[in-house]
Each structure stands twice: as structure tokens, then as C-alpha cells.
């Protein structure tokens, strides 16, 4: 069986729709991972030990295990405890949490690196601890860590292909559907790889521009 790329146009709209879903999942999970990462970092650093330790254990488990395994846990675990969410939501939560844990490691380091004098000055001005954290420390910490967080988000785009395994109809699954009726895996997977590559290049370009702006603002 040779190659025949002429089957692609007929299915192009299905595949491109899948690409839109991939972008939506990546955006959703990126937002969850960004704010979740900040939250996890603040909890890991400042919360009461009773709260802190369960979160530490959770982070430890998530850092040391594959994303695919975590997706199975979240998808089937939610069903088991009686929460029946659509696969899309489970995918966004799973991807988001996975990268929130990675982002949290970066945020923790950058929060600790913010000059102590900043907190002291804010406290002297009458801000509460929480206010000082939220208005003075975190904004500075976030700015310093944007480049590596951006790299995590590019990794997130590629890992979003995994949610096809729990039945989210994104780019990869839409290709599988097209393959199901054409029996042309090579052509469609190469097409899909090319689409991921283009989205990836776009994200890299945006990240580079943001990095340059941060450099300029320092």
C-alpha cells in the first residue's frame, strides 16, 4: 500500500476542527496550570503544615508519574466518586493539574528569590501578609519566571495529544476518525504532525516576543 495524500482534502475540515479543539484545550489547561501553579506554590511555601503536607505529597506523586497515568486516574477517578464530567473537562483538568505541579516548582523558586526587603517594605506600609504576597511578591516572581513557564506551555501543547486516549475529540482523535474510514494512517498522522508543528512555531514566536518585552522592561 503506497502513499496517497489526495484523500486528505475530503477530511480536512474534520481535522482542522480538531485543531481548534486542541488549541482550546491547550489554552484552558494553560490557564489552569498558570493559576494553579501560583496557588500550589503559595500553599507549598506559606500554608499551615496541615494543609501544606497533603499538597506536597500530591505534588510529589504528580512529579514522579507519567501524564498518561494521571489522565486515567482523573478520568476514571472522577467517575468513581460520582462526578460525571465530559471528557473535555477531564482532559483540561488533568493536563492543567499536571503542568500546575511543574509550574509550581518554578514559582516557588522565584517567589523565594524575590528580595526580602520587598515584603518588609510592604508590611511597613501597613499591608497584611496576604496583601504583601498578592500585590508585591507574586507579581515580581511571575515576571521573572515567564520564559520557563512559556516552555512548559509549549510542552503542554504537545502533551495535549494524550487526551485523545481518554476520548477527547481533539486533533489526534479527529485524525484517528479519518483513518478509521480511509485506512491511511501515515498520511493523516503526518498531516497532524505538521499542524502541531505550525501551532508550536506560533507559540514559540509569541513566547520570544514576550521574553523580549520582559527584558526591555527590566
Amino acid at each position, binding site marked *: *500500500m*503506497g*502513499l496517497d495524500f489526495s484523500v486528505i482534502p475530503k477530511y480536512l475540515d474534520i481535522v482542522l476542527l480538531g485543531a481548534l479543539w486542541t488549541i482550546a484545550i491547550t489554552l484552558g489547561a494553560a490557564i489552569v496550570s498558570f493559576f494553579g501553579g501560583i496557588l500550589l506554590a503559595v500553599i507549598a511555601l506559606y500554608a499551615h503544615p496541615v494543609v501544606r503536607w497533603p499538597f506536597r505529597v500530591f505534588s510529589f*506523586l504528580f512529579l*514522579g*508519574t*507519567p*501524564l*498518561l*497515568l*494521571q489522565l*486515567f*486516574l482523573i478520568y*476514571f*477517578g472522577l467517575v*468513581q466518586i460520582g462526578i460525571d464530567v465530559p471528557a473535555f473537562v477531564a482532559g483540561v483538568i488533568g493536563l492543567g493539574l499536571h503542568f500546575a505541579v511543574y509550574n509550581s516548582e518554578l514559582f516557588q523558586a522565584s517567589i523565594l528569590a524575590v528580595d526580602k526587603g520587598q515584603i518588609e517594605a510592604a508590611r511597613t506600609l501597613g499591608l497584611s501578609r496576604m496583601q504583601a504576597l498578592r500585590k508585591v511578591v507574586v507579581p515580581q516572581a511571575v515576571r521573572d519566571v515567564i520564559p520557563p513557564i512559556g516552555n512548559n506551555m509549549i510542552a503542554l501543547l*504537545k*502533551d*495535549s*495529544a*494524550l487526551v*485523545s*486516549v481518554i476520548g477527547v475529540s481533539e486533533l*489526534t482523535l479527529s485524525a484517528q476518525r479519518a*483513518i478509521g474510514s480511509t485506512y*491511511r*494512517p*501515515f*498520511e493523516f*498522522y*503526518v498531516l*497532524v*504532525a505538521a499542524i*502541531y*508543528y505550525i501551532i*508550536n*512555531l506560533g507559540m514559540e514566536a509569541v513566547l520570544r516576543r514576550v521574553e523580549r518585552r520582559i527584558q526591555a522592561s527590566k
Partner: protein
Amino acid sequence: MDYALMQRVFPFFLEAAWITILLSVLTAILGLTCAMLGTAARLSRFRVLRFLGAAYVSVFRGTPALIQLFILYFGGPQIGIQLDAFEAGVIGLGINVGAYMTETMRGAIISVDKGQGEAARTLGMSKWQAMRNVILPQAMRLMIRPLGVNLNTLIKSTALVAAISVVELTYTAQRYIGSTYKPFEMFLIAGLLYMIIIYVVGLGVTWADRKARLN
């Protein structure tokens, strides 16, 4: 928490863990080989080789590993490549991780002080001798830790081959989640085994790093 069930299925997970270890070892060997070739190409004085090296890194890091596996395993037969799932897993993941390791190796080599290479050349060494006797030994020391990070990622990414039905840890967990409806228990067993593997490899990397620094 169903401990009795966990005890009953544990031997099957342990067996699967060996497959994960075997996959990781073979993938690491292939990945390192690809990375050496990739690095040599990227630092070559021939423009064509530099371009090929850069394209390899860009394409394999710029697309999902899962899709690369699918192209090889499902698409391979269309272009005359017949592999079983395990072989496709090792080759697909190995080439993928090789692209990441290429960047690690290249980064270590170009971060060795330029003066070192120049001094060696002044002493009459050829370019290749300077690379082998002066730059590489120093770069080796710099690359052990970041290669360890690559290894850690590699071990976790072997889970992807579950999607082409290789019976390793994640596939086993998935199968038992499906048949027992105990996702948390199965996650804990598989997760624990992954973390033990990663921990042991981490100890090895730390040991190698310390040894390299002492010399």
C-alpha cells in the same frame, strides 16, 4: 482503599515494571546514540549537516511524541517498515528523546570556555584533537546533570507506548482500572513503581555527577 485487591494485582504490575525498565534502558541507549550523531551534525563545519541536525531537533521537539509513535507504528507498514509494538516504541521514543538530548549535549559543549579550544589549537592540536582531549572531557562533566533530567522525562514518556498496546506499567494500570473500577489503587501501585525506578536512576546520575566532578 482495597488493600487485598492491591496485593493480588501487585505481581502483575511488578512484571510490567520490568518491561518499563527494559524500554527505558533500550530507549536511553538509542537516544544517546541519536544525540551524539545529532550533536556532531549540529557542530559540523558542513552547512548541510548543520541544517539536518537543526531540522532533526526542531521537528522531533516540535511535534508530539505520541504522533511520532503513531506514524512509525501505524504508518510504517505503508512505507515498508514493519515493526512490532515494542520495537516501534523503542525506536520512536529513542529518536524523540535523542532530539532533546542533542540540545543538552550541544549546550554543554558550547558552554565550555572558548579559550580552552583556542589554547589547545595554539599548542598544535588539530581541531578534532582539541575537541576530544580538551573540550569533550569538560563538557561531559557539564552534561551529566541535564542528561539526568532527560532520562527522568524519558522514563515517564515510556508510558506513551501503552497507546500502541505494549504491556508496560501504564497499560497494565489502565487494564486493571477498566476491570476493577479502582483507579486510585491502581494509580498508587503504578505510580510507586515509576517513582522507585526514577529514584534509583536519580541516585545513579548523582553518583556519576559527583565522580565526574572529583576527577
